[in-house]
């Protein structure tokens, strides 16, 4: 069971769990902003760029 869980964790989340957390947070902010009159389309692309860069910086040390 533990190995099964680990397999799916590695399969979906991969090397850096912070990327998955960052994506989840970005989805939350996007969904919140989408309920207001402020355009929300820009949040996810910017979050993707930021999350990716932070993850790359951690790996490139």
């Amino acid at each position: 069971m533990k190995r099964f869980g680990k397999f799916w964790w590695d399969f979906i989340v991969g090397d850096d769990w912070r990327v998955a957390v960052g994506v989840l947070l970005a989805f939350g902010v996007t969904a919140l902003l989408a309920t207001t009159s402020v355009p929300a389309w820009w949040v996810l692309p910017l979050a993707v760029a930021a999350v990716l860069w932070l993850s790359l910086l951690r790996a490139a040390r």
Partner: protein
Amino acid sequence: METVEALTIVLAIGLTRGWRSALTGAAVATLALAAIVAVLGPALTVIPIETLRLVVGGLLLVFGLQWLRKAILRASGWKAVRDESSVFERERAEAASAPHEERAGLDWYGFTICFKAVLLEGLEVAFIVLTFGSTQGSIPLAIVGAAAAVILVVLAGILVREPLSRVPENTLAFAVGVMLTTFGTFWGAEGAGVDWPGGDAALPAVLGFVLLVSLGYVTMLRRRRLVFA
């Protein structure tokens, strides 16, 4: 790409331990993958499209960023590029030294290694086929596309009878990462309630953005590596 990786292992096992067990392992794994797609495919079509886009977008995004991260690190020299020839030699050496154990008339080592390789690499393909197919409303078309790619790679493998080391694997991984991240961003945002300016026409703009950012990161990390060297 996943087929190239699985093919390397099946070739190494087939040449070292015999083709019967290697091909049986690969065939059983392919059947298992077909069953997974056959069961999950219809189940996904009953989920409302907005929910599907949010979940699929999120999964594609996390998955795509994994690919992109690895490809950028390899392209900038921070991670070793996967070498199919050395993987092939390593698998051959391990297969040659593994003890022979026969079960159900098959060399069990050869069978399980090939089964696992094809199943694990194939799961990634099945995941992409199901997510792209379900959000675009045509899982059969996505299956045909994936099957064509698999057949092409396997035919090339049969023709050359050695690992496909000349396939530009990291360039392909980079392209796949950019595509998965783009579609994940686009569908995920729509699922979260976003209306893209220009509707579907925004997709190429998102693609361009992800591509430029990724290429920029490769350049920045190459410079960083030079500073560290």
